[in-house]
């Protein structure tokens, strides 16, 4: 039929302006099911704004944003989009600081989100096992009862990734996940994201080139709100325009 069947995420002709400033300009991006896409680009290129559009925080002025080839995301609000199966990790790690690591994950865990099912929720054995498993994956099992506020910056990043896993989304949007992480943590994160992308679609925004290399995925370079270059990391980083406008700076 048309170009957007068999896509997990389909953006075409998307533009948004803030007070006349075009933060996103005729952007087109496609992510297939179980595919990882890395997005690089200078600060202010519109990477975070793109995620805001996908997750319902910002409405595009024009353009098409489709999830799973059919659902028009521009008509839905944040909660509805999250419940479709789109999870997001924010650039600035945002966890619920006054609550424990465990409670952060329990709230994120994929469960009915209605008022009364939340009020009467009791963790089943499966839920406890699942949260424990995630805690092990993100290496926070020893700190599960601590307040999230007491975690280091890197650990908060991990907790937020854990919350993403708990949500069990079909599409993950991960904004600068390795900021504030040590080299070994960065490596672990790349490994984890690669593993996740075996079964789900993942969009990663990152500046750290060695990290992007480890992801080994298709790369899109964004600048001034539209796609500058696309391909493997080597292709993109060899592109003279990319060198001039991003890497060369």
């Amino acid at each position, binding site marked *: 039929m048309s170009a957007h069947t068999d896509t997990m995420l389909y953006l075409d002709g998307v533009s948004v302006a803030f007070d006349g400033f075009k933060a996103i300009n005729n952007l087109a991006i496609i992510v297939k099911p179980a595919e990882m896409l890395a997005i690089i680009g200078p600060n202010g290129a519109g990477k975070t704004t793109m995620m805001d559009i996908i997750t319902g*925080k910002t409405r595009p002025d024009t353009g098409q944003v489709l999830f799973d080839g059919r659902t028009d995301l521009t008509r839905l609000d944040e909660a509805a989009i999250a419940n479709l199966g789109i999870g997001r990790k924010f650039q600035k790690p945002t966890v*619920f*600081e*006054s609550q424990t690591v465990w409670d952060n994950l329990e709230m994120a865990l994929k469960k009915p989100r209605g*008022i009364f099912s*939340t009020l*009467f929720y*009791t963790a089943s054995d499966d839920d*406890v096992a699942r949260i424990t498993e995630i805690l092990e994956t993100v290496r926070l099992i020893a700190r599960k009862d601590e307040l999230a506020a007491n975690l280091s910056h890197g650990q908060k990043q991990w907790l937020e990734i854990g919350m993403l896993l708990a949500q069990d989304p079909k599409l993950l949007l991960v904004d600068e996940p390795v900021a504030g992480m040590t080299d070994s943590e960065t490596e672990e994160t790349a490994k984890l994201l690669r593993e996740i992308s075996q079964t789900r679609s993942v969009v990663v925004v990152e500046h750290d080139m060695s990290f992007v290399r480890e992801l080994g995925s298709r790369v899109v370079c964004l600048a001034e709100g539209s796609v500058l270059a696309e391909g493997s990391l080597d292709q993109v980083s060899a592109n003279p325009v990319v060198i001039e406008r991003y890497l060369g700076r």
Partner: protein
Amino acid sequence: MLTQALFRALDKKAIWVIAIFLAVAVLVPMANLLIPPGQYGHVPTYLVSLMGKYLAYAILALALDLVWGYCGILSLGHGAFFALGGYAMGMYLMRQIGSRGVYGNPVLPDFMVFLNYSELPWFWLGMDNFWFAMLMVVFVPGLLAFVFGFFAFRSRVTGVYLSIITQAMTFALLLAFFRNDMGFGGNNGLTDFKDILGVSVQAQSTRATLFAATAIALALSVLVCSMIVNSKLGKVMIAVRDAESRTRFLGYRVEYVKLFAFTVSAIMAGIAGALYVPQVGIINPSEFDPANSIEVVIWTAVGGRGTLIGPIIGAIVVNLGKSWFTTTLPELWLFALGALFVFTTLFLPKGIVGLWHQAWGRMRRKTEHAERPAPPTPAQSADIERGEDPASFGHEAQPKPAE
């Protein structure tokens, strides 16, 4: 499902608070009725009603804390829900006067005869039935909160703007209830009550019973609040308070979470108002005064918001202070109240309960240091910090195994 939720609600601290108020519900009336006046331990009837009034205020403060302390909605209009509950009770009590009024009209209350009403306005119909009136005590504040909250939260009105429109709401009701043609007795309000459920409201035993009912209602309110704040919904409420937008991206409908808390809270406030009115003997439009709602915020802040015991302590302590001031230094009360609020905001952000937790945590740390000079392990310091954190009273940080 429900039993598990109840079980969760009855954590160590909540069970104590509930037990204390249930004991108070029995002991104070006993001390009033069984110990003869003049003998040691007798509680005079006026004091029983005064304490009943404080406990009604405590329910109101607890209701406010559910939305403010736990969900981050600073309502400056909770006095309106309290007053509406009070008016519903007042209407019932007016209809019990019957032909004993000054004008002796068997159906119309005195003020209606005076204003030349020929028949009861429709909204007074059925209010002579106790259970119908009690239904209205719950229904009217609940419905107002639901409708108001539905529009406000759906339009994402938050912070200062929300506080301002709640003030506007109570102010609008104040003006409306002042009008004689509203059919609620104008600025005189409803008073000169005679009977409640067939017995005199003035009787000593009735006053003792009303006190007991208020103490029991407070215990039940603590139970309900504890059930809510200890559930996953309670955690989501705190999440909404701390990071509203983030909660949306997890898929929770923040507007419904707030609407639930706001409606439950308004119902509690309405019940508090209904218990208050027969004990003070009057309800008039001044209960809608925006300043009243602000006072409730002060009680809650002084006691410690985001805890269940804090607002109860705050309501009782501040009103004890108010009673003392208004008899000895009446002109200074508002200054004292303002100073108290400024002092609390600056020096006791977590109120009296926060101070208590701090002192207790320090003491515990000292004894621990004395016993064991080694620095506390991370797990222990986490424990101490948890002990200090009053963010949610009875908050259980341990993961809950399937119960």
